[in-house]
C-alpha cells in the first residue's frame, strides 16, 4: 500500500495502522510537541497516543496509531498546534457522508478483547439481544498484539471460532456513556463515520487497560515507547525496526514484551526492573536529531535505539467513570479500578483490573451471563413503574430494592443452553501469572532533561511541582493550572502519572489525590460526525404551506418565522423591498390584496365545557359568544404577561376554532393541554391541531368582496367578525370575516390539498399578493400589537392599552390575579405608544432607545447613550431639538416597530415607553444616530374603523372603482369569465403535500426499498370514546384513516398529515437513522420522532412502514428520506 508522509512516498502493508507503516518505513520523528517543539515519535499503538498526531486529508489532527492505512493516504506531520484547513474541510473537499443511527439491546458489550468476546457469547447464549462493539478492525483486543496460545493454538483461532450473537460493530469506538445506559459510539466507515446512539438495558464494559509510562528525564525522545506498543508492533504488524532495546519493566508485562522483542530479532540490552534490584532508568541520550541512542541507568549508559517502558497498567475506566461510577485506587494493582457502579453496568476483564487472559474470559462469561439474567428476571406489567433501561432501579446505585421491580414487557427468553452448561469453557492459556507492579511514578534524574508527565501537553514534573508548590492540592486545580490531561489524548497515558507524581510531591497516597473527571468523548470526534446528515437544508426542518411552490414561482422573498418559510414580499420586475411593500400596501388599502395566512395556528376545540375553558384561558369572554361569531382574544401567562393572541370562532354550541400566532401555535396547544390535564381535568374539552389541515388565504382591501364573489360567493355578505361554512371553489371550506389591516377582509380556508388552487384563484380574481412585511405595516398603521414584537414576556394587556379586553366580570382566568400585583398594577409601567419622527422620511430603528427630548450631553461616560465616536451627532441636531438635557439620560422605552407607510405618506413607529403621552417629545437613539420624535396615540390610520366594510360589489351599483365590469381583473380571470359564468374557478385541483417528490421517490425505489406517498387519505382524529378503528395515539385519542364514514365529533384532519410509505427489507435501515425508538419492539405503531419532526410511525408488517407526517413538514421529511436512502 502506497502512501505519503509529508509528501514523501512510502509503502505499508495491508492491516497496518499509519503508525505501524511509519515505523516500518523507518520514520522515527513523527512530529514536534505542542508547546516545546521537541521531536516526538510513536509512543503507543492505540487511541491513547499522545505524540504521533498527524493531519490526514481533511482531518486536521488524528492519532497515527488509530488511522488504518489505505492506498493513496496522504499524511502530514503537525508542527505545534494543528490547524483546520477550512478549504480542505469544506463540503466540496470532503466526500464523506456521515450519518447516525439508533440501536437498542438487552446487553451492550463494549470491547472485543477476551473479556468482551466472552461476555457477548455468554449473553447471547442466555438469549439476550446483544450488541458488541470494538474499536479495532478485527476482534480480539490485546490477543491480536500477543503471541499467547489458547488451548495450544494461536489466540485468534479461539476468537474466530466464537459464535457471536446479535450485532457486531468493529471499527466502532464508544465515546460517551450517558444517563440511563445511553452509550454513543463512532463507527469509522470509508464513506464517513456513523454515530450510533445505543440504549442498552445492561452494559458490560470490557474496555481493557492502557499501559502507562512514568516520569524520568528524557522520557519523551523518539525511541521511547510503551512496552506493550513495541510488542504490538512486533507481534501484530511484524514491525520491529529496532536493533537494541532496553526494557524498563515496573511490571511483569515488560518481561513479556522483552521476550516478544527477542523473538522478533531485537537484542535486549537490559531489563531494568526496579522490583529486582532497585535499578531505574534515570535518563536518555539522543543523536543530533534527538532520537534515542542510549539509556542511562544510574551511572551506566546502555546503547539502545528502543526504550520500552512498562510503567504499569491503568484499567480503561473512562466509560465507567462517565457513567458516574466511582473509581477506587487498588493498592495491589497500583491503579484506579471501578468501584461503585451508578448505572446498570459491570466492568469485566482488564478494565476491572483482571489482566490475565483466562481471568478476563471467565470474568466476561460471568458478566455476560449476569447481564442477560438481569434483563430476563424482571417482572411486572407494562406501565407498572419505571419501565425500561436505566430508569430507577436498574443501577446498582439504587438504594431501594422495590425500585428494581420494573416493568419489562420484552423480557428475554433463553435462546440456547443455560449459562455454564457447556459452550462457556475458559480455554487453557500459556500466559505466566502477573506479579505485583512497582509503585513507581517518578524517577529523580541526574540530567537537566525534563521529565514529562503529559507528553501531549508538554507538562513536566517541574510544572507539577510548581503547581503544588503554589499551594494546589486538588488534581482538578493542577490539571487546569498545568493543562495536563487536556490534550487530544485527554491524558490517557498521563493521567495516572500526574496523580502519581502529585502523590509523591504531596506525600499523599494516589487514592487520596484521586483522578480528574473523565468526560466524553473518549476519543476526539469531528463536528461532521456529530452533525451527520443534519446539515444544510436538513439542519433544521423547514415548514412550508400548500402554496409554497406558487410563492417560489412568483419570486417571493421569504422570511423565517419559527420553522416556517413565509413570503416576506413579492418583488416585481426586480423592484427593491421598499417599493414592493409600498405597492402591496397600496393594493390592500385601495383595491384588494391577498396573503398566505396558512401558518397561523389553528386549534379545533370541542366539548360541553369548551366555552367555560376558553373563559379561563383568555382574558375575555367566550362562553357568551354567539354561534357563528368570531372574537379576538388575548391570553396571558400565570404571571399576567401577554402570551398569545388570535381570533377564536364559535362554530357550534360546543365547538370552537382558535387561531394562534404563527410562532406560538405549538406552545399554545401545549398550554391548553397543560391547564386542562393538570388543573381542570374534569372539564369536558378536547383540542386538536388543524393548523396544517386548513390552508388559509387572507383577502384584504376595499374590493375584497369581488375576490370572495369569485371563490366563495355565498360568503360575500358575511358580516364583520362572522364565520360561514361554505363552498370554496366547490370544496367545503370556511370563511371568516376577520381583519388585521382595518380594511374589509376575509380569511378563506380550504383543506391543504386545495390551498394552492385557492391561492391561484384569489390572485386570478385580481388580488395582489402580499407578504409578511406588508401585513406588519398594515396592522401597525392600525396600532395592532404583534405578540413577540410589541411584547416580550414583560408586557400586560393593560400595557398594550388593551384593558378593554380584560374581563372584569369573570371571576377567574389565567393571569387575572397577577394583574392585581403591585408591580403589574403600578401606573408608571411602559405602555404602547405611537411615534412620528420629525423627519417623515426617516425610518426609526426597531430596538432604538427612547430618551427625553434633546441630545445626550456630557455625563458619566458609562451612562451616556451614544454610538461609535464616528457616528456622533455634533452640534444641535436639525429640527426640533428642544435643547440638551443633563446626562446621564434615563431610558424611557424602546421602539418596537417602525415602518414607512404608503397610506400616511411618512414613517411612523410603535414603542413601549413609560411616563409619556401624546404630544410629548422624545429622542430615539440607535447606533449613534438620534432622531427627534413626537409621541402620538398608537393608531395612525382610520381610527374610527370607517373602512371596515369596504366597498360593495360593483353589480350592486356601489361606488366601487372600476365600475360594473371586472375591468381591473387579470387576464386570467377575464378568460374564465368569458364562458358566461361568474369569475369563479369551478374545478379546484387537489395537490398532496409530497406531490412534488413523486418522481424522485420513484427514482430511488427498488426491490430493497420502495418509497411513495399515499396521498389524499381521509383522516380523522377522535377523542373520548374508542372508535374501535384506527391508531390509538393517546389515552383517549385515536387517528382513523381510510375509506370510512366519519361519526359525530370526529375532527377531519385529512389535510393535517400525509402518509409516506416505506416498504422493503431496507426500510428499517433508513428508519433507524432518525427514529430513536426500538423498531423491533414497536407495538404496531407509535408517535415519535423521525429526523427532526414528529410522526406517527405504523408498522403494517415486516419491512412495511407508514409514516404519518404533518403536511407542512412533508417537504423536510421527504428530503430527509431521500438523503437517508442515498447514504445507505
Amino acid at each position, binding site marked *: 500500500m502506497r502512501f505519503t508522509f509529508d509528501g514523501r512516498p512510502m509503502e505499508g502493508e495491508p492491516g497496518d495502522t499509519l503508525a505501524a507503516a511509519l515505523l516500518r518505513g523507518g520514520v522515527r520523528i513523527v512530529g514536534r510537541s505542542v508547546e516545546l517543539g521537541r521531536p516526538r515519535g510513536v509512543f503507543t499503538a492505540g487511541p491513547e497516543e499522545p505524540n504521533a498526531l498527524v493531519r490526514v486529508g481533511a482531518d486536521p489532527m488524528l492519532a497515527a496509531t488509530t488511522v488504518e492505512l489505505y492506498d493513496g493516504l496522504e499524511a502530514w506531520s503537525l508542527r505545534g498546534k494543528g490547524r483546520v484547513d477550512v478549504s480542505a474541510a469544506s463540503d466540496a473537499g470532503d466526500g464523506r457522508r456521515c450519518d447516525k443511527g439508533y440501536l437498542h439491546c438487552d446487553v451492550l458489550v463494549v470491547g472485543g478483547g477476551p473479556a468482551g468476546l466472552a461476555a457477548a457469547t455468554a449473553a447471547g447464549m442466555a438469549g439476550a439481544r446483544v450488541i458488541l462493539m470494538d474499536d479495532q478492525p478485527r476482534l480480539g483486543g490485546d490477543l491480536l498484539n500477543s503471541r499467547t496460545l489458547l488451548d495450544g493454538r494461536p489466540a485468534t483461532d479461539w476468537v474466530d471460532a466464537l459464535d457471536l450473537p446479535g450485532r457486531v460493530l468493529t471499527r466502532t469506538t464508544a465515546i460517551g456513556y450517558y*444517563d*440511563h445506559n445511553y452509550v454513543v459510539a463512532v463507527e469509522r466507515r470509508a464513506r464517513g463515520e456513523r454515530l450510533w446512539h445505543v440504549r442498552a438495558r445492561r452494559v458490560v464494559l470490557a474496555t481493557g487497560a492502557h499501559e502507562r509510562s512514568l516520569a524520568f528525564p528524557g522520557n519523551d525522545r523518539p525511541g521511547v515507547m510503551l512496552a506493550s506498543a513495541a510488542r504490538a508492533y512486533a507481534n501484530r504488524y511484524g514491525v520491529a525496526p529496532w536493533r537494541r532495546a532496553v526494557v524498563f519493566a515496573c511490571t511483569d508485562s515488560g518481561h513479556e514484551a522483552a521476550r516478544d522483542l527477542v523473538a522478533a530479532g531485537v537484542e535486549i540490552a537490559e531489563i531494568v526492573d526496579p522490583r529486582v534490584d532497585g535499578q531505574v532508568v534515570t535518563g536518555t541520550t539522543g543523536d543530533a536529531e534527538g532520537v534515542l541512542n542510549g539509556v542511562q541507568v544510574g551511572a551506566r549508559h546502555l546503547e539502545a535505539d528502543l526504550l520500552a517502558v512498562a510503567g504499569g497498567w491503568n484499567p480503561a475506566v473512562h466509560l465507567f467513570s462517565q457513567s458516574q461510577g466511582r473509581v477506587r485506587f487498588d493498592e495491589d494493582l497500583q491503579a484506579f479500578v471501578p468501584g461503585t457502579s451508578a448505572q446498570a453496568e459491570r466492568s469485566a476483564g482488564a478494565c476491572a483490573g483482571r489482566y490475565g487472559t483466562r481471568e478476563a474470559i471467565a470474568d466476561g462469561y460471568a458478566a455476560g451471563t449476569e447481564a442477560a439474567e438481569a434483563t430476563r428476571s424482571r417482572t411486572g406489567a407494562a406501565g407498572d413503574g*419505571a419501565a425500561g433501561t436505566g*430508569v430507577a432501579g436498574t443501577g446498582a446505585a439504587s438504594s431501594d430494592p422495590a425500585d428494581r421491580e420494573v416493568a419489562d414487557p420484552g423480557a428475554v427468553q433463553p435462546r440456547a443452553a443455560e449459562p455454564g452448561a457447556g459452550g462457556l469453557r475458559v480455554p487453557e492459556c500459556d500466559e505466566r501469572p502477573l506479579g505485583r507492579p512497582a509503585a513507581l511514578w517518578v524517577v529523580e534524574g541526574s540530567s537537566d532533561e525534563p521529565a514529562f508527565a503529559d507528553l501531549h501537553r508538554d507538562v513536566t514534573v517541574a510544572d507539577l511541582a510548581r503547581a503544588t508548590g503554589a499551594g494546589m492540592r486538588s488534581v482538578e486545580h493542577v490539571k487546569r493550572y498545568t493543562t495536563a490531561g487536556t490534550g487530544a489524548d485527554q491524558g490517557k497515558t498521563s493521567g495516572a502519572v500526574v496523580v502519581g507524581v502529585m502523590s509523591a510531591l504531596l506525600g499523599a497516597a494516589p487514592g487520596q489525590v484521586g483522578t480528574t473527571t473523565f468526560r466524553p468523548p473518549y476519543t476526539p470526534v469531528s463536528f461532521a460526525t456529530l452533525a451527520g446528515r443534519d446539515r444544510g437544508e436538513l439542519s433544521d426542518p423547514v415548514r412550508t404551506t400548500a402554496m409554497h411552490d406558487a410563492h417560489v414561482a412568483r419570486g417571493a422573498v421569504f422570511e423565517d418565522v419559527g420553522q416556517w418559510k413565509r413570503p416576506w414580499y413579492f418583488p416585481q420586475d426586480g423592484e427593491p423591498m421598499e417599493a414592493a411593500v409600498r405597492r402591496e400596501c397600496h393594493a390592500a388599502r385601495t383595491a384588494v390584496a391577498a396573503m398566505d395566512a396558512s401558518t397561523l395556528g389553528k386549534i379545533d376545540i370541542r366539548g360541553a365545557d369548551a366555552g367555560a375553558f376558553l373563559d379561563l384561558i383568555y382574558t375575555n369572554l367566550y362562553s357568551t359568544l354567539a354561534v357563528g361569531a368570531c372574537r379576538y382574544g388575548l391570553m396571558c401567562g400565570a404571571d399576567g404577561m401577554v402570551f398569545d393572541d388570535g381570533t377564536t370562532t364559535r362554530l357550534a354550541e360546543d365547538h370552537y376554532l382558535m387561531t394562534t400566532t404563527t410562532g406560538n401555535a405549538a406552545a399554545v396547544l401545549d398550554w391548553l393541554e*397543560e391547564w386542562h390535564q393538570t388543573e381542570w381535568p374534569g372539564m369536558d374539552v378536547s383540542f386538536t391541531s388543524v393548523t396544517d389541515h386548513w390552508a388559509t388565504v387572507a383577502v384584504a382591501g376595499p374590493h375584497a368582496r369581488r375576490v370572495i364573489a369569485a371563490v366563495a360567493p355565498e360568503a360575500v355578505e358575511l358580516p364583520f367578525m362572522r364565520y360561514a361554512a361554505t363552498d370554496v371553489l366547490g370544496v367545503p371550506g370556511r370563511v371568516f370575516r376577520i381583519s388585521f389591516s382595518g380594511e374589509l377582509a376575509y380569511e378563506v380556508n380550504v383543506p391543504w390539498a386545495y390551498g394552492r388552487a385557492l391561492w391561484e384563484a384569489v390572485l386570478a380574481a385580481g388580488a395582489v399578493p402580499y407578504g409578511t412585511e406588508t401585513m406588519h405595516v398594515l396592522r401597525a398603521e392600525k396600532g395592532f400589537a404583534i405578540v413577540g414584537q410589541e411584547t416580550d414576556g414583560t408586557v400586560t394587556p393593560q400595557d398594550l392599552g388593551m384593558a378593554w379586553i380584560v374581563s372584569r366580570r369573570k371571576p377567574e382566568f389565567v393571569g387575572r*390575579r397577577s394583574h392585581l*400585583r403591585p408591580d403589574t398594577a403600578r401606573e408608571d409601567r411602559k405602555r404602547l405608544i405611537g411615534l412620528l419622527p420629525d423627519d417623515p422620511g426617516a425610518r426609526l430603528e426597531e430596538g432604538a432607545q427612547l430618551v427625553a427630548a434633546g441630545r445626550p450631553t456630557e455625563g458619566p461616560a458609562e451612562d451616556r447613550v451614544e454610538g461609535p465616536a464616528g457616528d456622533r451627532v455634533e452640534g444641535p441636531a436639525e429640527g426640533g431639538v428642544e435643547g440638551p438635557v443633563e446626562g446621564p439620560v434615563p431610558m424611557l422605552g424602546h421602539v418596537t416597530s417602525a415602518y414607512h407607510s404608503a397610506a400616511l405618506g411618512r414613517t411612523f413607529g410603535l414603542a413601549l415607553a413609560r411616563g409619556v403621552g401624546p404630544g410629548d417629545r422624545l429622542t430615539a437613539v440607535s447606533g449613534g444616530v438620534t432622531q427627534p420624535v413626537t409621541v402620538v396615540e398608537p393608531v395612525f390610520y382610520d381610527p374610527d374603523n370607517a373602512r371596515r366594510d369596504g366597498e360593495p360589489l360593483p353589480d350592486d351599483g356601489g361606488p366601487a372603482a372600476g365600475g360594473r365590469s371586472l375591468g381591473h381583473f387579470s387576464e386570467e380571470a377575464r378568460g374564465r369569465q368569458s364562458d358566461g359564468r361568474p369569475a369563479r374557478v369551478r374545478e379546484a385541483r387537489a395537490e398532496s403535500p409530497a406531490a412534488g417528490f413523486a418522481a424522485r421517490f420513484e427514482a430511488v425505489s427498488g426491490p430493497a426499498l420502495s418509497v411513495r406517498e399515499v396521498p389524499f387519505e381521509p383522516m380523522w382524529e377522535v377523542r373520548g370514546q374508542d372508535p374501535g378503528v384506527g391508531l390509538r*395515539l393517546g389515552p383517549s385519542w385515536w387517528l382513523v384513516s381510510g375509506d370510512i364514514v366519519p361519526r359525530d365529533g370526529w375532527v377531519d384532519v385529512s389535510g393535517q398529515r400525509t402518509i409516506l410509505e416505506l416498504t422493503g427489507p431496507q426500510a428499517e435501515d433508513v428508519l433507524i437513522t432518525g427514529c430513536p425508538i426500538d423498531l423491533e419492539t414497536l407495538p404496531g405503531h407509535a408517535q*415519535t420522532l423521525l429526523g427532526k419532526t414528529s410522526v406517527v410511525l405504523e408498522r403494517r408488517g415486516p419491512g412495511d412502514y407508514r409514516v404519518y407526517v404533518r403536511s407542512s413538514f412533508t417537504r423536510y421529511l421527504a428530503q430527509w428520506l431521500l438523503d437517508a436512502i442515498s447514504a445507505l
Partner: protein
Amino acid sequence: MLLIDCPHCGPRDENEYHYGGQAGIPYPLGETTDEEWAAFVFLRDNPKGWFRERWFHAHGCRTWFDVERHTVTHEVRKAR
C-alpha cells in the same frame, strides 16, 4: 439522554418530552395574598435528591404526568 417512562407509551428518550417543572403546585383557589400568589407563580423547590416533577410527552401521546427524579444521580422513578 434520560429515558423517561410515559404511562401511556412506555420508556422514551427525553427529547420527546417537554419539562414541566415541579409537580404538585396547585392553582390557588379563592383569595390569596400577594405573597401567596407570588409563591405560586415564581417560587419552586430546588432540592438535592428526589424531586417530584412534571413531564409532557409532547412528541408522543401528549400526556402530562409526574415522575420522581433524583437531581444528583438522574435516576427516574414512578411518582408515588
